[in-house]
């Protein structure tokens, strides 16, 4: 939105559609490509930061992603939106980096994430703090944010990647299975365990605050 001081009124600046910018970028207009980058960089950076738990790695993934997108512009036929296309490139790069980390760190033994406790009859032993009711409307304070960040960073990588792709980024299960090269059942199982661990961490946070 801009203000026309002479006419004393607001002017609405209609932003060009991604598809228009894309056509211009494909014709060699680098400024148009830069505008596309500006529109989608937060989403790409956010995905990589959540998956890798490192802003520095996320910045590198953003560079790799947009450079790859630029170099493959002529092949992009527009079957999906530009944002979705770039997003999937970023997801692939982030997953590749995670795989590389695993190979480089062979001694890593994934710890079982936090999960609820039951007695021998299968009854829940935990006392659940009452925080589920109005969670959607809650404003997060820094301490809770920190507790969630810590719990997310502590998840085994194969759980975190599925949780990020599904619960934070909203990708369909089938696509996550393809991206992570695993079965649908494994994706669901990992997601469930990641949610249990994160729920447990939030619950512990509230319980400690109340005590």
């Amino acid at each position: 939105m801009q203000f026309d001081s002479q006419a004393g009124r607001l002017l609405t600046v209609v932003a060009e559609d991604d598809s228009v910018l894309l056509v211009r970028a494909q014709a060699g207009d680098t400024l148009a490509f830069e505008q596309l980058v500006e529109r989608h960089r937060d989403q790409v950076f956010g995905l990589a930061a959540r998956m890798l738990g490192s802003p520095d790695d996320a910045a590198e993934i953003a560079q790799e992603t947009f450079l790859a997108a630029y170099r493959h512009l002529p092949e992009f036929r527009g079957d999906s939106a530009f944002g979705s296309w770039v997003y999937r490139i970023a997801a692939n790069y982030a997953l590749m980096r995670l795989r590389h980390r695993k190979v480089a760190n062979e001694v890593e033994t994934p710890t079982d994430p936090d999960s609820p406790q039951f007695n021998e009859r299968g009854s829940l032993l935990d006392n659940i703090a009452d925080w589920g009711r109005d969670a959607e409307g809650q404003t997060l304070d820094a301490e809770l944010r920190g507790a969630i960040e810590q719990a997310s960073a502590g998840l085994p990588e194969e759980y975190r990647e599925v949780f990020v792709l599904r619960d934070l980024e909203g990708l369909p299960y089938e696509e996550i299975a393809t991206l992570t090269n695993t079965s649908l059942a494994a994706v669901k199982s990992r997601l469930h365990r990641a949610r249990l661990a994160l729920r447990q961490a939030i619950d512990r946070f509230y319980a400690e605050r109340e005590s």
Partner: protein
Amino acid sequence: MSNTCKECIDLLLDYVDGELPVEMRARLEVHMGECEPCDQFLKTYKATPGLCRKALAAKMPESVAKKLGDFLRLEMKKDRKA
């Protein structure tokens, strides 16, 4: 026969996704109606992704955005020369 808490919690992902067969869903809901800890567990399980989305939201810092722009301009220039 009623489910145990553990059996119910194992089914929560499919329950929340609406993918449980009708009979299993009904048994789980009977349990939830009678077991307050599980009912509370379900509410907090459902609330978890939303809270995490808020907590883990990330915006590219200005300094990183600038570096990205500089990097891409340089690479695009190199590509055009090649």
